[in-house]
């Protein structure tokens, strides 16, 4: 099973060492609207959860997204 960081690294093409919760689209060149959709879809598939449209639209950084997964009681790493 892939971890949250595995999926971040895979979709946004950054190394594991670079990943931290404060990262947002401003910091990651590959974080465009298309990759963000693919990222959310990959997380939903891997962790068997559904984000709401509101959550998808309002998250600002990786920590926000990680927080949603934790709030659903899912282990991600």
């Amino acid at each position: 099973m892939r971890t949250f960081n595995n999926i971040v690294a895979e979709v946004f093409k950054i190394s594991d060492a670079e990943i931290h919760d404060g990262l947002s689209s401003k910091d990651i060149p590959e974080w465009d609207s298309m990759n963000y959709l693919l990222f959310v879809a990959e997380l939903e598939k891997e962790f068997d959860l559904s984000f709401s449209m509101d959550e998808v639209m309002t998250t600002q950084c990786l920590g926000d997204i990680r927080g949603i997964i934790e709030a659903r009681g899912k282990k991600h790493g």
Partner: protein
Amino acid sequence: MVNPKDLLLKDISVGDTASFSRIFTRNDVLAFARLSGDQNPLHLDEAYARTTRFGRRLAHGMLVGSLCSTLVGMYLPGKRCLYLSQTLFFRKPVFIGDTVVVQGVVRAKSESTGVLEIGVSITKDDEEVLTGIATVQVLI
């Protein structure tokens, strides 16, 4: 113009399938060679193709792969499709005149983003010649 299907996200479930068949003609291969600029003799020169292990001209792999676009743009989901990504594996050659069957199956669906992951299998005489995964968004 042929009308594409017009499926909404709510109409689509994991496991849904769509399929169609297609025969590639000499003219299709010529048209693709002109359009893409890939004029490799394996596709265009019968005498050269005979000297290879294939023995005759092949359809371009990407011409066969273009049927993935047909699948998502016309059948599953059709009109509301926004094509996001595609993987392709060319497993067996397709020759001019071969009939291929394209089948797509929905493997994952994201309600929040409208993203579908569609497994694509293209077969010839029940053997897979091309496989891949299409990722699309169903537009509202």
